[in-house]
């Protein structure tokens, strides 16, 4: 016969209610961990999708995601010629917000060279972009239909394909167009702007000739098998005009720089909630021990060893934590698809949280155990 289980099942209403409450707290702690993992995965999803070994960006910048970077498109040829580089491709990025059906519609537009890499990593519906102009592959998250047309800058773009859930480091869904289209959208925003530009030039105030639109934000490179990314990056860096960032470094720039604050905020909330859970468990175990003073005194009187009494309290605390964890986990499994942000539950995070909760249950039972050990068997007497 297990005293902890017998007590809990006798007071099951109270026990279940408390466990559900704790379970909700644990679920929130869990979801915050999942949100952080989702944040990291989202932030990295675009840079990962490009499958680049090196990111060549404007000198002295942490581009193209964490800082603005602008470099001429044609340096791709110089990069491709660097020893160790297999191929190089230009990429342009811009965040676009348009009005669609009366609502702001925000996405991250990528321009890539159709003959190179850096385009959509997969096509889950429709087809890839085939014609150089006015075709668009939309990210799944944009919820656009195949064949739908979107007005961007001066032209309508037709959705020809859908790619997976790729988002920018800011969380906006990504869409792909050809590089010339992307440059058009970026630099020739509308006819008025072009006319103004021509007028300025005609009046002799416009500077030297037509401004170049052959600008990209980064050139990505893939390396030959066996080439060391660090070495090749150093080689490119020696030109002094550009900075080459390895994919690993890029990942660090994105996670450490851009989402560090979010991580700290979520981390702080988690610590606070875990502490609150601990205090609650501790209070509940303590009060349930107070309720059992007479029982504990009787057990001592009839000669039960302290280990039996300590075990009863400790087991109840652990049971509470265990059930709360189960409830939190179940709750999250049932709802995480519906969260507005991506939640990624990693086995490691779940195991660590489980260990932390169990440790807290042990700590939380100390107050109750201390009280129980001080109970005198004589307290079982009297009316």
């Amino acid at each position, binding site marked *: 016969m297990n005293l902890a289980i017998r007590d809990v*099942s006798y007071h099951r209403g109270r026990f279940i209610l408390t466990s559900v409450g704790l379970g909700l707290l644990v679920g929130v702690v869990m979801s915050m961990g999942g949100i952080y993992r989702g944040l990291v995965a989202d932030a990295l999803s675009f840079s990962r999708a490009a499958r680049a070994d090196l990111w060549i960006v404007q000198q002295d910048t942490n581009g193209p995601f964490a800082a603005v970077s602008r470099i001429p498109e044609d340096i791709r040829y110089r990069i491709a010629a660097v020893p160790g580089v297999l191929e190089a491709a230009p990429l342009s990025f811009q965040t676009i917000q348009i009005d669609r059906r009366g609502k702001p519609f925000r996405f991250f537009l990528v321009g890539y060279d159709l003959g190179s890499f850096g385009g959509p990593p997969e096509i889950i519906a429709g087809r890839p972009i085939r014609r150089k102009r006015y075709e668009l592959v939309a990210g799944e998250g944009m919820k656009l239909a195949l064949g739908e047309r979107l007005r961007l800058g001066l032209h309508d773009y037709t959705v020809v394909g859908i790619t997976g859930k790729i988002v920018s480091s800011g969380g906006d869904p990504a869409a792909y167009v050809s590089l010339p289209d992307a440059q058009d959208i970026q630099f020739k925003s509308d006819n008025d702007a072009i006319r103004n530009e021509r007028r300025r030039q005609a009046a002799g105030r416009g500077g030297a000739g037509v401004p170049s639109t052959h600008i990209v934000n980064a050139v990505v490179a893939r390396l030959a098998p066996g080439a060391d990314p660090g070495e090749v990056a150093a080689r490119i860096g020696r030109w002094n005009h550009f900075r080459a960032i390895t994919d690993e470094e890029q990942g660090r720039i994105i996670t450490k720089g851009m989402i560090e604050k979010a991580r700290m905020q979520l981390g702080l909330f988690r610590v606070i909630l875990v502490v609150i859970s601990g205090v609650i468990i501790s209070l509940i175990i303590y009060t349930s021990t107070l309720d059992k003073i007479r*029982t504990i005194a009787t057990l001592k009187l*009839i*000669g*039960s060893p302290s280990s039996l009494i300590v075990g009863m309290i400790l087991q109840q605390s652990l049971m509470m934590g265990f059930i709360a964890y189960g409830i939190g986990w179940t709750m999250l499994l049932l709802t995480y698809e519906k969260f507005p942000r991506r939640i990624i539950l990693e086995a490691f995070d779940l195991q660590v949280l489980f260990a932390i909760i169990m440790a807290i249950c042990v700590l939380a039972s100390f107050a109750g155990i201390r009280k129980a050990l001080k109970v005198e*068997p004589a307290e079982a007497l009297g009316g």
Partner: protein
Amino acid sequence: MFAVEVEKLTKIYGRGDTAVRAIEGATLRVKPGELVAILGPSGSGKTTLLTAVGLINEPTHGKVIIDGVTVADEGWKPGLDLRKIRREKLGFIFQAHNLIPFLTALENVMIALQINGAPQAAAEERATELLRALNLGHRLGNYPSALSGGERQRVAIARALANRPKVILADEPTAALDTENGRNVMALLKTLAVENHSAILVVTHDRRMVEGFDRIFEVHDGRIAGGV
């Protein structure tokens, strides 16, 4: 040999001006199979005497010998496992509320056996047998809250008997019962003393409850007046 021997037992609560001499120089001996009463008004020191014999209240002076083992001689004998002696040699019955509320009648008896090392099945068998003998065969699965006062007291008696103790200590076992149930409990204790060959010490303030007892010690202001 005696089951219980108490020699010149004195218990003083507190010290200095507020010291209370609850029991003063009490001496008594109880043989196995004897049913004795400790009778006295409230506050006379009966519970103090019983709990000193029950190893839950350390005597200030004097000796307590249980089943030939000296457990107290000017305070507890060092090196003794009092809980072990309690669970092996002593059985306790109190006024009320001494059953564990979240255990059924059967489990309340089983726990005493299991604490003493009995395996689950054996404990269940013995507990069932005891409760049946006490006319509680139909109440095995009930929680104490669903039992009457008399039934609860019989469960407590079954628990006290579970490990076949040498000595059973009962503190006002009839106080929470009506006269009829009280008399039944006392009659039951008398049978048990004979059948189990246990020494039974019953504390009560109710003179009407002690007829048929082998001996009666009267306590007044901490002093034992006599073994009739």
